[in-house]
């Protein structure tokens, strides 16, 4: 068994959560979670040990808008290891105004199963 200290990033409190885990057949399995102050922290800390994920935010080129860039995000967290793959794909995209907040800009970005959506009207 191994214990990992995870600083929770879900909210600004930044709790120091302890996670006991062990490797079973090549997969990390969570045994116990301590010092979390909310269920979101529990979930985050567990995932951080098993498969860390992040919401990715960036921009894409916008034609015909007030500004040349449109802000976007991954609709759900994507694996931390795929952040740069996602960025590579995002960088190739250009959209044309009008775009509404929530519109899907890229489906299944970098094969993660997660969509990239607009976070702004443009």
């Amino acid at each position, binding site marked *: 068994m191994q214990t990992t200290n995870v*600083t929770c*990033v879900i909210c600004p409190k*930044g709790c120091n959560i302890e996670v006991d885990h062990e490797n079973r057949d090549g997969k990390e399995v969570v045994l116990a979670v301590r010092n979390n102050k909310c269920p979101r922290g529990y979930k985050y800390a567990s995932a951080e040990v098993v498969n860390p994920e992040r919401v990715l935010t960036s921009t894409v080129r916008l034609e015909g808008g007030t500004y040349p860039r449109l802000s976007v995000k991954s609709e759900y967290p994507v694996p931390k290891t795929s952040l740069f793959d996602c960025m590579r794909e995002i960088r190739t995209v250009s959209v044309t105004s009008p775009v509404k907040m929530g519109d899907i800009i890229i489906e299944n970005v970098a094969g993660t199963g997660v969509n990239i959506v607009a*976070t702004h009207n443009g």
Partner: protein
Amino acid sequence: MKMNVNVAVIGGGPAGLAAALECRKNGIDNILVIERDKQLGGILNQCIHPGFGLHVFGEELTGPEYAQRYIDMLSDTDIKTLTDTMVLSLTPQKVIRAVNTSLGVVEIHSKAVILAMGCRERTRGMLRIPGTRPAGIYTAGTAQRLVNIEGLMPGKNTVILGSGDIGLIMARRMTLEGAKVSGVYEIMPKSGGLKRNIVQCLNDFGIPLHLSKTAVEIHGRERIEGITVAAVDENLSPIKGTEEYVECDTLLLSVGLIPENELSRGAGILIDPKTKGPVCESGFETSVPGIFACGNVYKVYDLVDNVTKDSVLAGRYAAEYIRSKSE
């Protein structure tokens, strides 16, 4: 041109929008929000990262999304807005002079005024870092605007001075866009940024945070080529002999924010020399009756959710003020 309004809100960022909406909710009509940018939302529009709204909306939003919620709420009301409009002056009698391209100079007479102009970043000039004055030195917020709004990268090899949140956020943003961020140097023994930003923005990408170190010289004639950093003692003075040269083509400064109270000063409002925000005895009312202040113009906040909460109160007090005057 002349206008008469009940409440004039100066600034259409999160503070101004929340205060205006709350005023309206409390039964005040004829409210005007004046915004200098082409769009409402203020600095949130360039804060494209997540982490906003957990307290107010119970979910994690990006800056533009958080702003859009308020913009949408506002458009469901009869609150008037003037965007692309700059306020030139404010008098203690609550007369605002503003200007834009279509109306020219507008004189706005208001029963109450809510100041929500936000803050500005401390600059290299204020830090008085010796050395040359090349291109490539930006405050983190300016770099954020260049990257996120204009789509321009300030440079490829970045050093960040100061560990304020915008600097940390930009460390990640620049890294994701393919730049190298070789380190963050913080003069204090601990970071001024939120813990989660240290984890998500630095640790995630292996960017070192150097505490108790600061820049003592800037090098490079045309474009910045490097900085000399040095460790500092307990009085924050550089320690001789600890100097190191760090190569970079970009230096971002994230060394603090200052409430922007030039208009307030012009109106004779007392400014607290410590917070640099208006002195407010109670209810976010400044030393000039009927002029209220909220958001970063009042004091520098860590979290937009708290800006919203306080601005709602400011809006409510402004509404009370108007009701008490009309009774």
